[in-house]
C-alpha cells in the first residue's frame, strides 16, 4: 500500500460520521425526546447530561447496571482472602494467647469485615471505570461546538450512525421536530 493511498484512506475514515447531536435546555424535554427515539426504534443513542436525570434510563430503555454483580464478586474474594490470611498466619506462626486455639475466628471477624469492604470498594471503583470504558480521552461527541455545556446546563442527545435506523436527513428531521437545538453531525 503506497503512502498516498493510506493517507486517503485515513482521511476517509476521519470523515466517517459518528452521529447526530442536539441539545435541550430542560431535563423534561430530553426525557421526552429519548422516549420518542426509543419508540421510533432507535437503539444506539445516548444522552449527555450535567447530572443524572432520574428515570431517563427507563425512557431510553437501558438495562439495569451490572455493578452490583462486580462488587459482590470482589467482596466475596475479599472475605475469602481474609479467611485464608488469618488461617495461614495462625498456623504458620502460632501465638498462644490466654490458651485460646490458634485459629480463633471470633477474633478475626474485624479483619474479615474490613477486607471484604476494601475489596468491594476496589471492585466498585475500578469496575465503574471498566464498565464505563473510562478513561477515554477522546470521544466524537466532544466535537459538538456546544459540548462544554453538557457538563454545565445543556441536555444532549446523540443518535449514533451505527444504528440501523440511522438516516442523516430523517433522523435530523425527527430531532428537529422534538425541538433539539444546534443539531450537528459529528464525525468519528
Amino acid at each position: 500500500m503506497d503512502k498516498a493511498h493510506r493517507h486517503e484512506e485515513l482521511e476517509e475514515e476521519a470523515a466517517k460520521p459518528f452521529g447526530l447531536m442536539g441539545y435541550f435546555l430542560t431535563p423534561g424535554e430530553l426525557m421526552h425526546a429519548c422516549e420518542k427515539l426509543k419508540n421510533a426504534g432507535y437503539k444506539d443513542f445516548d444522552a449527555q447530561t450535567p447530572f443524572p436525570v432520574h428515570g431517563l434510563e427507563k425512557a431510553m430503555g437501558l438495562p439495569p447496571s451490572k455493578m452490583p454483580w462486580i462488587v459482590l464478586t470482589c467482596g466475596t474474594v475479599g472475605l475469602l482472602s481474609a479467611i485464608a490470611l488469618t488461617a495461614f498466619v495462625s498456623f504458620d506462626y502460632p501465638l498462644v494467647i490466654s490458651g485460646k486455639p490458634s485459629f480463633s475466628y471470633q477474633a478475626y471477624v474485624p479483619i474479615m469485615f474490613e477486607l471484604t469492604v476494601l475489596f468491594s470498594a476496589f471492585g466498585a471503583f475500578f469496575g465503574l471505570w471498566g464498565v464505563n470504558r473510562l478513561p477515554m480521552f477522546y470521544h466524537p461527541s466532544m466535537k459538538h461546538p456546544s459540548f462544554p455545556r453538557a457538563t454545565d446546563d445543556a441536555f444532549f442527545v446523540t443518535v449514533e450512525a451505527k444504528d440501523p435506523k440511522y438516516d442523516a436527513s430523517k433522523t435530523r428531521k425527527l430531532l428537529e421536530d422534538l425541538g433539539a437545538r444546534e443539531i450537528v453531525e459529528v464525525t468519528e
Partner: protein
Amino acid sequence: MTTAALQEDTPGKRAPLVLGHRDFNAVTETVAGIVEKKTTPSWLVLLGLAVSVLLILLGSLGKLAAEGLGIWGLNNTVFWAWDITGFVFWIGIGHAGTLISAILFLFRQKWRTSINRAAEAMTIFAVMSAAIYPVFHVGRVWFAYWLFPIPNQMSMWPNFKSPLLWDVFAISTYATVSILFWYVGLVPDLATLRDRATTKVRSIVLGIFSLGWRGSHRNWLNYEKTYLILAGLSTPLVLSVHTIVSFDFAVSIMPGWHTTIFPPYFVAGAIFSGFAMVVSLMVLARKAYGLEGLITIKHLENMNKIILLTGTMVGYAYAIEYFIAWYGGNEYERFAFINRAFGPYKWAYWTMWSCNVFSPQLFWFKRIRTSIPAMFVISIFVNIGMWFERFVIIVTSLHRDYIPSSWTYFRPSLFDISTFLGSFGLFFTLFLLFLRFLPAVAISEVKGVMPQADPHAGHGDDHGHDAHDDHHEEASAKSDESEDESEDEGDEGDEASEGDAEKDEEESRG
C-alpha cells in the same frame, strides 16, 4: 416566627436547598468561579499561617525520629497520652464526613449535597492527621511498615488477635475507601472544570483527572449505582472503624476502659465532634467564598440538630458509665470513676461535661441554632470538649493504677504540645489547598436536587420538595403529560417560596 418560617417547618413543604433564583449555569458559575478566579491575598496569608504550623509538626516529628519517644511526656504509668488522644480526636472528626456522604445519602437526606464534598475532604485530611500518631509512636518510624502482615526473613506475623492490628486494617481500609468515594464524586465536577478551562495546562491536567467523563447517561447509570454501593459499604465501615478504635481500650482489662458501652459511645462521640468541625469550617468557608445560597442556614441548622442529638447521647453514655461503675460493684472500677470526677484531673473531666453535654443543649432554641456566631462558638467548644473526652478516658484511667507507689500525674512535654498543634497545620494546609483547587461543593449533585432537575417539573406544587423520587416510578406512565411542560418550569410559586426562605434567612441572622 414569620409565616415563612412556619411554612419551612411544615412537613411536605420543605425549605428550598438552593437559594437566590439560581439556574443550572449559576450553580456552575458560583462553584467553579471559586476555583478559576485569581488567588486572593487573604488565602495566601491563611496558607502561610497553616504551612508555618505544619513546619512545627515536621520539626517535632524530625526530633522524635532522631531522639526517640523520650521527648514525649510519657512515663511507665501513663504510657499512652496525647498521642492516642490526638489519634482518636482526628479519626472522630473524620467520621462526620462519611456520615454526611454515606449515611445521609442512604437516608435520602438531600440537604447533604452542598456540604458533602467539603466534609469528605475533611475526612481524608483528618485521617491523615490521625495516621501521624500511630506511625510515629512505633518509635523507629522507618519500620512502620511492620504494622502490616508482610512476609519477612524472621517468618513472624503480627498478632491478629490484637485490637491494635484490627485498627491497622480498619484505618487503612477507611482511608482508602474514603479517597475512592471522594474521587468518584469529583470526576463529573472535574469534567465541568475541564470544559470551562481557558488554558492548555488546565485543560490537560483536568482532562486527565476527569478521565474523559462526558456525562453519558449510560455512564451515569453505572455511576449512580456505584455511588449507592460505595455509600452502602461506607456506612458499616465508618461504624466499624470507631468501634475498633474503641476496642483498643475496651478489650484491655483496665478499669475505666473495660466497658461494653464503648463502641456505640465512641461512634456517637465521633459523629458529634465531626459535625462540630464541619460547622466550624463551613461557617467560615461559605462566608469567605460567597456560598451562602448553596450552604444555607437550613443546612447549618440541620447539622446543629445532629450535634444536639449526638451530644445528648454522649452525655447519656457518661452517666451510664457511672451507673455501671456503681451497679457493677467492682471496687477498682468504682475508684477509677470517682477518681475521674473528683481526682487530680477533675478540671479536665468537668471541662468535658461543660463543653460536650451542657453547651450543645443551647441548640434546643431555634434562635441559637440559626445564629452564626452562636453556632460557631458552640462548635469550637464541642471540639475542645471532645479532645478532653479522649484525654480523660485515657489519662485518668492510667495515672492511678493498681499500685499506689506508681501513681503519677501526667504533664505533656513541649513536643507533645507541638506535635498536636502541628497536626492542625497539616489539616488546614490540605483543606486550604482543597478549597482553592477543587470544587468545594458537589456541582452535579446540587443541580440534581434543584426543582428544575425533576423531569416532571411544572406540575402544580411539586417544586422545592422531595416529590421527585415518587415520580421516578411513574416515569413511563406520565410521559404523555410531560410533553409540553418544558416552557413553564420555574413558575411563580417556586420563585415565591425561594424568596421567602431568603427573607427568613436574613431575619434569623439579624
